[in-house]
């Protein structure tokens, strides 16, 4: 411990080495994330909920540097509050995603965080937006974080347009479980948030409740 460089935890930035997913379904969106926050090789928080509310029916999923991601989410939360007060009604998901995109693009050289924005509004129903590196694109589903690389193929193959609520929830949990079992930087429990016209449902899947596959 007393070598010159000092222990790793002193110098390593806290990152959410992560798997985050958002999938649209008929009438809403489902967002999912794992719960591991690492600093170098050690896990700083094994139960962090990376699905952060931006507004009543708009959530974002955090990945990358924990400090940067939390700061962006809080900043956009504040900006959306002001915006919705000025409008006098709930903001659009597209507005929330645009605010996140603005920050991600303007300060892309200094920030290392990626947020996926998902929510429900009256005009467009359930929507998912990816904002990686400052682009803004609406997609039927979006993945992010270090664990996402392992499950692109799975989600591409299993996604069905027009699926229902429970099927989409099951798809997200299955995808998260596969990613968490293959990626060293993802793990812990799985958090799920389902947003539709009636409201928001938050669920936690503990380690032993996650679905198992071939070799588990």
């Amino acid at each position, binding site marked *: *411990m*007393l070598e*010159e460089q*000092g*222990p790793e*935890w*002193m110098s390593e*930035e*806290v990152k959410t080495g992560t798997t985050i997913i958002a999938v649209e379904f008929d009438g809403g969106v489902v967002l999912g994330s794992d719960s591991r*926050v690492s*600093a170098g090789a*050690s896990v*700083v*928080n094994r*139960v*962090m909920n990376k699905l952060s509310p931006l507004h009543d029916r708009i959530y974002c999923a955090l990945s990358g*540097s*924990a*400090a940067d991601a*939390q*700061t962006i989410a*809080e*900043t956009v939360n*504040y900006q959306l509050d002001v915006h919705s007060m000025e409008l006098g009604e709930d903001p659009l998901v597209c507005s929330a995603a645009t605010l996140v995109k603005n*920050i991600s693009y*303007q*300060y892309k*050289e*200094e*920030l290392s965080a990626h947020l996926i924005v998902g929510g429900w509004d009256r005009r467009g129903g359930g929507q998912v937006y990816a904002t990686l590196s400052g682009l803004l694109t609406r997609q039927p589903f979006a993945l992010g974080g270090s664990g996402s690389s392992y499950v692109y193929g799975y989600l591409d193959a299993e996604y069905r347009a027009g699926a229902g609520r429970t099927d989409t929830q099951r798809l997200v949990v299955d995808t998260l479980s596969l990613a968490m079992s293959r990626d060293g930087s993802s793990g812990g429990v799985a958090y799920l948030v389902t947003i539709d016209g009636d409201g928001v449902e938050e669920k936690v899947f503990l380690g032993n409740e996650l679905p198992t596959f071939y070799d588990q």
Partner: protein
Amino acid sequence: MQLNGCRSFRSMLGSPDISLANNAYWGIPSRRWDANAWKRQSSSAEQLPVLMSLFGGEMSLLRSPLQPPSPGFSFDLTERNAVLGRLLEGSPPPRPVKTGTTISGMVFRDGVVLGADTRATSGDVVADKMCAKIHRISANMYCCGAGTAADTQKTTDLLASNLALFSLNSQRAPRVLMAASILQDTLYRYGGQIGAHLILGGVDYSGAHLYTVGPYGSVDKLPFVSMGSGSMAALGILEDRYKPNMEVEEAKVLVRDSVQAGIMGDLGSGSNVDLCVITAQAVDYIRPYQESQYTNGRNRKYKYPPGTTALLSEKVVPLRMELVTEAVQRMETH
């Protein structure tokens, strides 16, 4: 590289301002850092002769020592360290005093328990055998600090002052969430340059809360935490035996055991265990809760009895004082 002449992300939210009083209290994100401010600030007067002698006037950044130093943190020394590193090529640069530490905390039924060891190291040497790592933030909140000793002390002092001002202004006890937000704002603003790894615990009207704040400004709210070089050892104990709603004596023993694991298993932690038990009714700051079992007792008495030194002669010279003037000034007290 900057696009469209924009400033850094941290300075987007407003001009740099040392007083946290305004925005942080009303929930407006106030993370501000002028990216160039640290280059413009001067180093204080004492460093000038040292630096001049080392580099023979190479440092053109320094202002005249006759001007008072600017307020706020000065990051001139990061440049000096870089130059020193190049000069002392091969040999390691000087390290700051760190509290190689074990600190931990947990929420129990009636409040929170915070624990810390008491060893401060400077490289391989123990600089302080009995340093206090649990800092008072307010009557209902205490904060343990690991990392660079100066940074943890200064950050917690600043937080305590600002919260005291807030209490006086608003007639309210501060919430733990507010303290955590202020810490997050401050540490994010300085981009990890302030090496403070903090565990903040307290009880407010909404219950008992425990937060951990990292040096880059990330915050986690958890039922049990540990930080410092001995954190892995302490976390093993906490993971094994933590249960929600424990009783106070059981919680104190668990935190003590977790700090003890750090003291035994980590070279940077040692000496005694301090505890701080915070409940809605009272705060019990127990320093030390447990004394080190490994200190040697003093073998001899080092007090000399009166008369050991022989008195050869005595001369008394009274000082004569004269009353020159007497004036009475009334104070306005009503």
